[in-house]
């Protein structure tokens, strides 16, 4: 009984799968997708303070998500503790609303304030005017929809 498939494993390894490997980059994408799923399934409404601390953390320079989150922890902003995925959801939302803009540098996504984002920040520091276009509160209402 000669089995034609006896050498299959060896030759598959040599010929078909030679350069075929599931890269770290691909693994990272899986993790990102998992994070996104997790945060969207438990999306709660954020507080004004949370958004404000994000905007403030970007006042001086652009940062990537991890930097933002470590800075938030330092400032005792605990909303995203054990739930960093939500931060990315929120960043994404702010980006859609053109409050933030993002760019890729060395495989990391950096976020920066837009002109609109700065207006929100400015509006927050001089509260008390009744009719203001850039209120975080209004942003929040949209975020929790």
């Amino acid at each position: 009984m000669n089995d034609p498939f006896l050498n299959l494993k060896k030759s598959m390894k040599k010929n078909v799968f030679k350069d075929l490997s599931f890269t770290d980059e691909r693994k990272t994408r899986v993790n990102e997708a998992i994070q996104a799923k997790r945060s969207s399934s438990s999306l709660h409404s954020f507080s004004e303070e949370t958004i404000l601390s994000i905007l403030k953390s970007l006042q001086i320079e652009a940062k990537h998500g991890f930097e933002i989150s470590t800075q938030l922890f330092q400032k005792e902003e605990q909303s995203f503790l054990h739930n960093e995925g939500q931060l990315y959801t929120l960043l994404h939302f702010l980006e859609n609303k053109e409050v933030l803009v993002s760019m890729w540098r060395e495989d990391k996504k950096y976020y920066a304030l837009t002109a609109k984002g700065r207006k929100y920040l400015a509006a927050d520091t001089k509260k008390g005017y009744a009719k203001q276009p850039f209120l975080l509160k209004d942003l929040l209402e949209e975020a929790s929809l």
Partner: protein
Amino acid sequence: MNELEHVVVSKENVIDKEQLIQELMNENGDAVLHLVFTYVKNQTIAEDLTQEIFIKCYEKLEQFNHQSSIKTWLYRVASNHCKDYLKSWHYRKLLLNEKILNYIPSKAKDVEVEVIAKSEEASLTNAVMELPIQFREVVILHYYEELHLNEISAITSVNVNTLKTRLKRAREILKAYMVEEV
């Protein structure tokens, strides 16, 4: 693999779940990718599908009942995902485009085929990759992954006797092919 088996998946413990997927990817990422490739024969598509498979595992982790090994379960998810893809409209469209392209004669293709058929080893893998999917699947799982028929049955939901028949048939097809080659 053993430490993976002992991870108890609890709904509260999201971090554990993520860690488990991370370990699954580190331990079996390449193996799943290779398996997927034997279904779809295209590296980029295989990588995309493998990514989707691990995401699916994360979503369906609660459905893993510890009756089989986690590897068997992972392969089952992978095999089903590939078959769904092969049935999909997207894939059929691709196939049609390929068929149309094949009508256009090209020199490069002939050279490629010649190079591939150079060694007997390569022609074996070639022949296997050309087998119809139900035969290819069982051949790969049995001879490449070295799984027992009852494991393959758990992965594919095909009963063992049918698998035996398919293996026998696959050997016949291959022998005929090899004779033709010579």
